[in-house]
């Protein structure tokens, strides 16, 4: 790869919660690394000087929960299209879940994913390997071998580890490697057959519901097991008020528990399902307004550490059908930041630095990966956000191969306009107007 020209991001608002920086300044990128942050930096002739007035310069966003669908379901998404969507959404690091076909339960699949991502070159991909072979909930995968191949955490995401004894063993074994177990918390005997949240809307629509208790029981179980084993535990896609309460209590107790939620859980409620809208079908399901408020409070007080998209591409084959048959999940890479700006910053009054922390430093800390800050000397993963740029989400505007978003047609204010990975421009709608809007 040829050495990229130095880039000078000029006079933007540099927000880096890790360094506790929030100042208007220049940021210079050279040799793929962040060189300097200073009020004024003079640049050489060959420097690509980009005017960032009115924009935010933040660490490249980190999404710790993405489904890339490759290998096996390339008609939904490939590593290439997923990475393009990530770059367009401002993400420079993403962690991909193991429920591919075959699942990422051995080092060959892990290496394949990393290799494909390297070829694509516009986003750093960190594979999360399966906890159990074939995600079947029985025998553990080879943690040591998977970690050596480049896996960074373990989860049977998409499927819960149903047997608590297996989860206990996984948590215990994870301690040998100081690695992270990510829990897809769902008590299947309570959720089975359910298509949406159990409550008012499910009654109105005559659909079988999934009670909040199905998630909360599973979270509580895994927290008890984390306490028993002394292992680290991360709870994926938290969606209910009760879950927030359980995690809050666990943290208060000093347990090594972290948690994430998806942008949809702080943006939408079960009412989005009205009219049997399969684009609002996901697991865990969209909950009530009370839950949505509790999720926002959890993000505000630090109970929930990270915003992760659970980007789950599905084609029209899985979505244009009977609600019961429709697949769970929505894409999220290209709407996560706009939703955080709309809902958390403008409606809920979050500080800008707080949402950046939830989308950069916190998730990279949890995963133990580089990035997440703008420290001089670090690899230059940088995202430039135009907080005022308006755009309407259309299928044409999406980079993801799938278009299963309940936000299609919605007009957002604020988005990523420039994404830099290791000093290279991987997404640029600042200097190149052709991209759309």
């Amino acid at each position, binding site marked *: 790869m040829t050495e990229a020209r130095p880039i000078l991001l000029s006079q933007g608002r540099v927000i880096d919660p890790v360094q506790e920086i929030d100042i208007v300044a220049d940021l210079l990128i050279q040799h793929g690394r962040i060189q300097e942050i200073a009020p004024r930096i003079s640049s050489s002739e060959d420097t690509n000087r980009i005017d960032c007035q009115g924009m935010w310069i933040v660490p490249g966003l980190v999404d710790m929960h993405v489904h890339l669908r490759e290998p096996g379901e390339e008609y939904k998404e490939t590593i290439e299209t997923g990475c393009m969507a990530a770059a367009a959404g401002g993400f420079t690091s993403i962690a991909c879940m193991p429920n591919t076909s075959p699942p990422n339960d051995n080092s060959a699949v892990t290496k394949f994913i990393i290799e494909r991502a390297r070829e694509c070159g516009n986003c750093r991909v960190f594979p999360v390997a399966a906890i159990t072979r074939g995600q079947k909930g029985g025998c553990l995968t080879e943690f040591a071998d998977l970690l050596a191949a480049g896996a960074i955490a373990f989860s049977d995401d998409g499927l819960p580890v149903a047997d608590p004894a297996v989860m206990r063993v996984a948590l215990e074994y994870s301690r040998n490697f100081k690695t992270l177990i990510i829990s897809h918390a769902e008590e299947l005997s309570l959720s089975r057959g359910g298509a949406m949240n159990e409550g008012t809307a*499910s*009654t*109105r*629509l*005559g*659909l079988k519901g999934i*009670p909040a208790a199905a998630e909360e029981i599973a979270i509580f179980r895994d927290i008890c097991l984390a306490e028993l084993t002394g292992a680290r535990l991360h709870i994926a896609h938290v969606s209910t008020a009760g879950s927030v309460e359980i995690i809050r209590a666990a943290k208060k107790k000093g347990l090594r528990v972290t948690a994430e939620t998806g942008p949809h859980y702080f943006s939408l409620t079960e009412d989005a399902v009205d*009219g*049997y809208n399969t684009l609002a079908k996901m697991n865990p399901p969209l909950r009530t307004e009370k839950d949505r408020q509790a999720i926002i409070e959890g993000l505000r007080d630090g109970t929930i550490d990270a915003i992760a998209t659970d980007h789950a591409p599905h084609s029209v084959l899985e979505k244009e059908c*009977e609600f019961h048959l429709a697949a769970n999940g929505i894409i999220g890479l290209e709407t996560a930041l706009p939703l955080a700006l709309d809902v958390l910053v403008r409606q809920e009054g979050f500080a800008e630095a707080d949402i950046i922390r939830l989308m950069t430093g916190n998730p990279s800390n949890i995963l133990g990966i580089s990035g997440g800050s703008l420290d001089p000397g670090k690899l230059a993963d940088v995202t430039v956000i135009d907080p005022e740029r308006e755009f309407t989400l259309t299928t044409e505007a999406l980079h993801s191969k799938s278009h299963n978003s309940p936000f299609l047609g919605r007009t957002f204010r604020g988005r990523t306009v420039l994404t830099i990975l290791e000093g290279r421009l991987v997404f640029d709608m600042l200097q190149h107007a052709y991209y759309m809007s």
Partner: protein
Amino acid sequence: MLKSRHILGISHLSPDEISFILDTAQSMKEIMDRPIKKVPPLRGKTIVNLFFEPSTRTKLSFELAAKRLSADTVGIAASTSSVVKGETLIDTARNIEAMRPDIIVMRHSMSGAPHLIANHVESAVINAGDGTNEHPSQALLDLMTVREHFGTLNGLNVTIIGDIAHSRVAHSDIMAFSMMGARVTVCGPATMMPPDPDALGARVCLDLNKAVKDAHVVMALRIQKERQGSLPLFPSEREYARSFGLSRAVTSELRKDAIIMHPGPINRGVEMSPEVADSINSVILEQVTNGVAVRMALFTLLLTDQQKLP
């Protein structure tokens, strides 16, 4: 006169529309008492009965209603359809649509399936029961039967007993009766109550005797044995019959003018004792008769109004 091109559910209708349908049904019922039970208004119209679930009464009722209005009918049962060959529901509907029917009457085991089809076809769609969601024509025939008896629906107490959570009849009935000013109480094993009865407009009373005390209308739902599955929601039919079955002992405490209803088919001796089903207060067969009249009304209203729509 109807706002929608389709009849997807009671939740899509207004009280005025419901009254209008019931009035129309009343005049249709008169036709059924004539020696020649056939009139010409829908001559040249085609009605497809697309049933993905077995049905005897409802299918026959729709078919007779269509024939009495001189429409041509075709029935498709799931076992003979291309669904078993892996065709999607939307494709099945589009293919039927390509043959230019005027109305598709559809029953499906999944909630919302007729709503999905309605988005993809030009024909009018009538929901003949979708999963655990709605069965609007059943609710309309129930309203008609009750209105014939009491002259009004407003202010009546209606009690529905049984598996409320999984009954599309109950869902449609609760919404329809409460929309027309009746007070709806539901009763049965607590395992069979909906998560949020309020969302439909019903109050739950778990004590059968209290639930039926002031009722003008007592409706027992069929216990669907096929729904019992791997996790039974009550211990035994014996216990259900003793706790929630309508027996003489229960009905003897009812108001003198109370009527007994059942959407059929009845499990005699489970949700209702034979004596109660055949008692003077039972209007179960009137419901069946009115079913044809209500469906004639729906066909007529959908097809005569359709021309006026853009």
